[in-house]
């Protein structure tokens, strides 16, 4: 066990507050496998939500360290529960009965590290192919050579084994409504869905293993490829995690530029969602209207970042290029333009009777269920919980800005829609204020050429367009991260889908799926 960890995690169930500005973790505790269930049951009764489950392989100690990261919707506090497991026979009782939503996290951690979650509700593989041997995130994993891909043999029909298997509909991976390579197996009774089973991993690239083999700087462009619709938020989370760990300063002007660009990115993502959601409901004009305005954002971001989709613009201790007055002027013009356009967006969609009929009361998430599944972002705020990382753990300059967190009332698709539309307005407000107050000065502080992060762990969150994006970075003082975990919002948000889809019409399940604003490569990583 390295000394960096001992600072944070004590022995036994002993909570120890830490300076949040460094690690992003308020309480950290170590417990043993047999006590974990009790501790987590207590956490559940206190209303904490499960942010993620992950692990680190300490090869030289012969141990696997399992982390449960818990957040709180009401208070800005984050708890890290750590459990040391024996590397040769890692076993821990599953907590999927306490936090139903944790099943997916356990499945992922199980297949990556070979940890056996006993009595799990579902122990199938989640992201990895069934024929993969070994556990890829263990340090001694040796990838095998893949056989060349040839033309597959013609398929043979199998007769339905029994009547009970019923009508099974495959939604995806090649389906217009799944927005990427997601596959959902629907067991149907007529047009009602009995059971929905999402199959992930079609776009899995093992980004977290890639991160372990890259220097901090080399990894930066990869982050944009996870969620290509809010690439700047991924940039931001990654650079912030490294900055916190290494203690780099960021000049104020750079922080302003970061906020302006990442809010622009948020608007562009929401505009695309606005169109895609209505497309799922069968209306296809909003899509093109949203796209036309999104195009202007892409032009603006192209001016400063040089790229239009997968940006790599933030740097450790600042940003890559300074913005000029023309960009700021044009951005202000765009803010005014979008303000004038938003009423027509609402005219087209918000008051529409069919739209209301299709979305109101569909896919209702209440606060407690949201906590079980770790829902964050607009999906959570639609349920009336005002949890937003920008307010809860104010990073960058968000603490100095005046903006509201829109919340919905009913937790249905309609509320989620309204929350996102209001968020666009709030983002416009933020951009305006930031442009008004942007100071002159440096855009990058001096950082060493080769970054060696000191030993330690940092869990740093940003509010991406889809919710709480958390980078958990474990360093052992090397040039490369020892372990980098991306806690992605869509992963948790989608994990509630099987529950919401039950006993719904197929049309409604697609409305629910659309209202989540999923980006599949982000889930698959």
């Amino acid at each position: 066990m390295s000394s960096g960890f001992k600072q944070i995690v004590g022995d036994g169930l002993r909570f120890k507050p830490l300076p949040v500005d460094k690690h992003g973790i308020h309480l950290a505790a170590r417990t043993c496998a047999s006590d974990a269930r009790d501790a987590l049951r207590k956490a559940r009764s206190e209303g904490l939500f499960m942010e993620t489950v992950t692990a680190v392989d300490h090869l030289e100690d012969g141990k696997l360290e399992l982390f449960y990261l818990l957040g709180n919707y009401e208070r800005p506090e984050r708890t890290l529960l750590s459990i040391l497991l024996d590397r040769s026979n890692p076993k821990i009782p599953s907590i999927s009965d306490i936090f139903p939503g944790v099943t997916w996290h356990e499945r992922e951690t199980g297949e990556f590290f070979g940890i056996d979650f006993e009595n799990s509700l579902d122990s199938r593989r989640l992201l990895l192919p069934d024929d993969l041997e070994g556990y890829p995130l263990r340090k001694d994993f040796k990838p095998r050579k893949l056989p060349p891909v040839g033309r597959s043999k013609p398929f043979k029909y199998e007769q339905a084994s029994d009547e009970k298997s019923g009508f099974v509909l495959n939604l995806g991976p090649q389906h217009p409504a799944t927005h990427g390579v997601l596959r959902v197996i629907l067991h149907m009774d007529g047009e009602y869905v009995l059971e929905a089973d999402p199959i992930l991993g079609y776009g899995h690239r093992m980004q977290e293993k890639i991160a372990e083999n890259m220097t901090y700087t080399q990894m930066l462009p990869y982050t944009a490829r996870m969620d290509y619709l809010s690439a700047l938020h991924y940039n931001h989370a990654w650079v912030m995690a490294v900055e916190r760990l290494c203690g780099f300063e960021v000049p104020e002007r750079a922080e302003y530029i970061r906020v302006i660009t990442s809010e622009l990115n948020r608007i562009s993502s929401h505009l695309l969602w606005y169109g895609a959601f209505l497309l799922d409901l069968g209306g296809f004009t909003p899509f093109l209207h949203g796209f036309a305005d999104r195009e202007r954002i892409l032009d603006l971001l192209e001016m400063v970042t040089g790229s239009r989709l997968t940006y790599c613009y933030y740097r450790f201790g600042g940003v890559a290029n300074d913005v000029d007055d023309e960009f700021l002027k044009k951005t202000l013009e765009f803010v005014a333009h979008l303000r004038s356009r938003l009423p027509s967006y609402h005219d087209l969609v918000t008051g529409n009777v069919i739209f209301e009929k299709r979305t109101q009361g569909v896919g209702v998430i209440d606060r407690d269920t949201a906590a079980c599944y770790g829902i964050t972002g607009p999906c959570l705020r639609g349920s009336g919980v005002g949890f937003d990382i920008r307010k809860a753990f104010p990073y960058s300059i968000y603490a100095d800005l005046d903006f509201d967190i829109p919340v919905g009332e009913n937790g249905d698709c309609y509320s989620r829609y309204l929350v996102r539309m209001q968020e666009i307005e709030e983002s416009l407000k933020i951009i305006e204020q930031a442009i008004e107050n942007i100071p002159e000065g440096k855009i990058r502080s001096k950082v060493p050429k080769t970054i060696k992060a000191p030993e330690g762990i940092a869990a740093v969150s940003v509010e991406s367009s889809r919710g709480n994006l958390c980078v958990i970075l474990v360093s052992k003082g090397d040039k490369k991260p020892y372990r980098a975990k991306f806690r992605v919002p869509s992963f948790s948000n989608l994990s509630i889908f099987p529950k919401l889809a039950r006993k719904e019409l197929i049309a409604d399940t697609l409305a629910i799926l659309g209202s989540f604003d999923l980006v599949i490569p982000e889930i698959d990583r």
Partner: protein
Amino acid sequence: MELLWILVKILIVFGVVMLHVAYATYFERKVIGHMQVRMGPMRVGPHGLLQPIADGIKLFFKEDVIPTPADKQVFYAAPLICLISAVSSLAVIPFFEGFAIANINIGLLYIFALSSLASYGVVLSGWSSNSKYAFLGGLRSSAQVISYEIAMGLSLVGVMMMAGSLNLTDIVHAQMSSSFKIYLIPQFLGFFVFVVAMLAETNRTPFDLPEAETELVAGYFTEYSGMRFALFFLAEYIGMIIMSCIGVICFLGGWSGPFHVPGLPFFWFVIKVYLFIFFYYWVRATLPRYRYDQLMALGWKVLIPLALFNIVLTGTIKSISG
């Protein structure tokens, strides 16, 4: 001799309608394009004017993929059923004074009969494709038929009462001699019910459930390609034109207009039909899709009572005033 004359008439009507179908697709893409801040087809010919022809040629030469599990005979027959019922409906439409291929006295009933037949094509194509999306699409089509068909039939009873005939030419004549000149004004309730049912009849947005792209990929014609797909497409657009014609004949006074355009007896008829067609496109560019239990509720709980009320209203007013 008579037979030859009939054949010539058929050829003229068919040719003209086919041309209109081709350019209705062009019109649709242009109208919706401009509603969506884009241009629509621009590449083939000036302003994309040759686009429909290019599309037709492409579809004609495309490979015809017939899936192995499909029920071949039914699979072949389904698009033909749709096409035949749509094209045959054209026979009774009076495009202008004294011009209809067949001036029969049950014109309206004939149209209803054939349009119901068209949904058989849809249901059968869904069934025979042996694909799940197509299957669901076909089922949805049958659900749709039982939702709006009664409302559609009842919505025109008011018109029949006022005109005293099922013959389409007679209905137009009766309108010309009525005090309002068009039945839209006394029959506005019937008109409303008819328009909603008309959208459902032709499987257009917001009732495009059988082909709901984002739910069922392409619905009942998922497995169809090339020319077979084109036949469905043709049937759908001819169906739209037929329904627009019925709307024009029963509610908007057919070929009559505020003034006579010399040499073009069908001038007003075409204008009015295109108003309907434009309405179709406008709705398509505006509305999202209904869910299909909602469509059923709409048909049974709103449209049928409204149509019945319209009948009672028409009867009462007629017996008081007459």
